[in-house]
């Protein structure tokens, strides 16, 4: 099969060998779980429990009436010790449910189990996915049931399963494919049924030959799901670039994948969907990669949502040297956290600990107009123009240049020889544009 890809992009060192051969381990239940009531794109949940309540594993503890939202569940059994704002990995304080586990790990009663996937209807799948609080596990955490309920006038014909994992360091999706192949395939079938279509592509980068071999073997008998091997290049896993590479369709500026008839789901999400439909299991745990040069025992771990970063780092043997930067996610788009008290949320694909040497600050120099940011921009923007627009506060020009379609993949900042903080400027300009448009209203 030929390798497909997109134009632009960068080749950062992959750094996956740190963890790619380490099987997924289960991290035991910590002494405290902190479950933020907003872990997804969309409306935050209202708490369904109060201080002093006893909760069971899988019990719904937060919910919202809004369509674009996802409920949250208790990751284990125990007692609610508090409901109060707590620092969230994204930086701000978010209302969170504090649970003290009783270590019995008791499930809620009568979870709706299904033994044959042919027995569930399309509507049931969407409902179960929604009830289980499943969101995209690739990082953006967009509620999955919303993607499964496209507006009537949009005709979906293709499902893309994103197993690209183009961020350096991260190997959680890769390990999941090696260890949970069956569940993933069931999940993809359920997603297809949920969309009422029969055409899926499973996309893997060519630097994961083991996973490709395994999936190729498994997909021999399944006609609905096709394997696509993509060139190893960042950001291959970006939705629009993935859609173009596989279907040759270009998502127009300001539009969504469903406007070109495509739904993209992460491979881990497919696994979570299978768990939710077959066992009625809500999204209360996930696999993530703990890695970097400043952690003694890196690896891939099955972690309860709400586990504090500090507990996970301690379980992994702690850091080699004084901590300098701790990142939620990968090094290209991940978020540097300000405290180790932040909990793992549904979108936490990894915890990356970089050493002092690696995070050395480089004073940005003047733009030397080398044009490298243009060459690598997968959206064919001129990122240096956004920076200029930011510096002279010409936000209208930036808006005309479609800055809002920038997904902040970081390729421009990565290649900039003058170390100009491109993404930072883009974020500033975007937020200023938002502020201005709000003022107008």
């Amino acid at each position, binding site marked *: 099969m030929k390798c497909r890809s997109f134009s632009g992009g960068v080749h950062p060192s992959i750094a996956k060998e740190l963890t790619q051969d380490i099987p997924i381990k289960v991290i035991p239940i910590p002494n405290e779980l902190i479950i933020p009531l907003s872990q997804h794109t969309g409306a935050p949940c209202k708490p369904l429990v109060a201080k002093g309540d006893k909760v069971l594993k899988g019990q719904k503890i937060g919910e919202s009436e809004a369509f674009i939202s996802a409920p949250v569940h208790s990751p284990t059994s125990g007692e609610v010790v508090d409901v109060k704002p707590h620092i969230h990995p994204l930086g701000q304080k978010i209302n969170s449910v504090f649970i003290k586990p009783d270590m019995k790990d008791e499930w809620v009663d009568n979870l709706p189990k299904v033994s044959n996937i042919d027995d569930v209807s399309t509507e049931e799948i969407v409902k179960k996915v929604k009830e289980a609080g499943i969101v995209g596990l690739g990082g953006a955490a967009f509620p999955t049931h919303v993607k499964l309920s496209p507006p009537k006038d949009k005709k979906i014909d293709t499902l893309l399963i994103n197993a690209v994992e183009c961020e350096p360091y991260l190997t959680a999706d890769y390990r999941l494919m090696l260890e949970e192949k069956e569940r993933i395939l069931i999940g993809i079938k359920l997603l297809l049924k949920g969309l009422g279509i029969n055409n899926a592509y499973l996309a893997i980068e060519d630097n994961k030959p083991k996973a490709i071999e395994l999936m190729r073997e498994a997909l021999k008998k399944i006609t609905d799901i096709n394997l696509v091997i993509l060139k190893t290049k960042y950001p291959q896993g970006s939705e629009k670039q993935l859609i173009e590479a596989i279907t040759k369709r270009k998502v127009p500026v300001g539009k969504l994948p469903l406007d070109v008839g495509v739904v993209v789901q992460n491979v881990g999400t497919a696994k979570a969907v299978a768990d939710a439909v077959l066992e009625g299991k809500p999204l209360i745990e996930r696999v993530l990669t703990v890695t970097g040069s400043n952690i003694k025992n890196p690896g891939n771990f099955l972690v309860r949502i709400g586990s504090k970063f500090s507990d996970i780092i301690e379980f992994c043997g702690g850091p080699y040297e004084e901590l*300098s930067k701790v990142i939620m996610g990968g090094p290209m788009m991940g978020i540097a956290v300000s405290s180790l008290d932040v909990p793992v949320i549904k979108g936490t694909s990894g915890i990356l600990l970089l050493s002092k040497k690696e995070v050395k600050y480089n004073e940005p120099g003047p733009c*030397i107009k080398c044009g490298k940011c243009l060459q690598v921009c997968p959206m064919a923007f001129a990122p240096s123009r956004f920076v200029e627009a930011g510096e002279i506060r010409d936000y209208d020009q930036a808006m005309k240049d479609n800055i809002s379609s920038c997904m902040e993949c970081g390729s421009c900042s990565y290649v900039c020889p003058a170390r100009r903080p491109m993404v930072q400027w883009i974020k500033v300009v975007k937020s200023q544009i938002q502020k201005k448009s709000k003022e107008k209203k």
Partner: protein
Amino acid sequence: MQQKDSNILIVDTSPHIFIGQTTESIMRDVVIALIPAAVASFFFFGIGALIVLTVSIIGCLGTEWIFCLITKRPNTLKDTSALVTALLFAFCLPSSIPWPMVLFGSVVSILIGKLIFGGLGFNLFNPALVGRAVLMASWPQEMTTWPKPGKIFLGAVDTLTQATPLADLKGYSASYMDLFLGNCGGSLGETSALALLIGGLYLVFRGVIELKIPMTFIGTVFVFSFILKVDPIYSILAGGVFLGAIFMATDYVTSPITSKGKIIFGIGCGILTVLIRAYGGFPEGVCYAILFMNGLVPLIDKFTQPKIFGT
């Protein structure tokens, strides 16, 4: 988990890793790439070349250092771009030029060519070529008298002057091989196509320059000369085409940032070079061709912005 108070986590925007290449490393690579041509100039033009190079370096670095002191700006010498300008400026001078003129030109290069625009990244024109253009207008006699190359190790350099091969395109007798190796009259760094090619390949290999501008520049000179019935091989090897195409037209700051723009820029430089050579008052056109195209860069960039994904 109780951490020591001193343990503050660094929080900043993604991405958190960067490519190894920096402005300094790029400039360093350009200096390295210019070394073969510098050695060749010393080999062919002897002590005169060394004097021109030394004075130019002192003039350029000194001007930038003093400017930073007076304006109370952080010292920008460490970005090495002044050294690149110094070498390139020296490369487009004849080895026989009196040193005060070199000093004057190098000050003009850095001060008028770069610093008054705001320093590295803000200048519109190639600083080295600005210096050369000013010298050309001030002392045309000295700027167009080139000593005949001699082998310094075999004795003194022949003080007889000769015209650059370009001055007499039809009648001059330098062989292609002499032109390729640099054994002919001309400015310091422009004569040896071989040495310039070695440097250019190094820059391509290091990911500093792309082939777009040099290829279109040299290619256009070749084709356009052929059309005007001038020996095309002679046209690209004699004079400053290789030096200009590989090292001056590719200057990031003064060339387009878009891919299409680079091609237009290269072709424009090539056409202008041949036109000036054929119909202009000077024997050589590379310098003015590049300067003219430098002026068009903002316009070229404006009209060659790539089509945004999904529009």
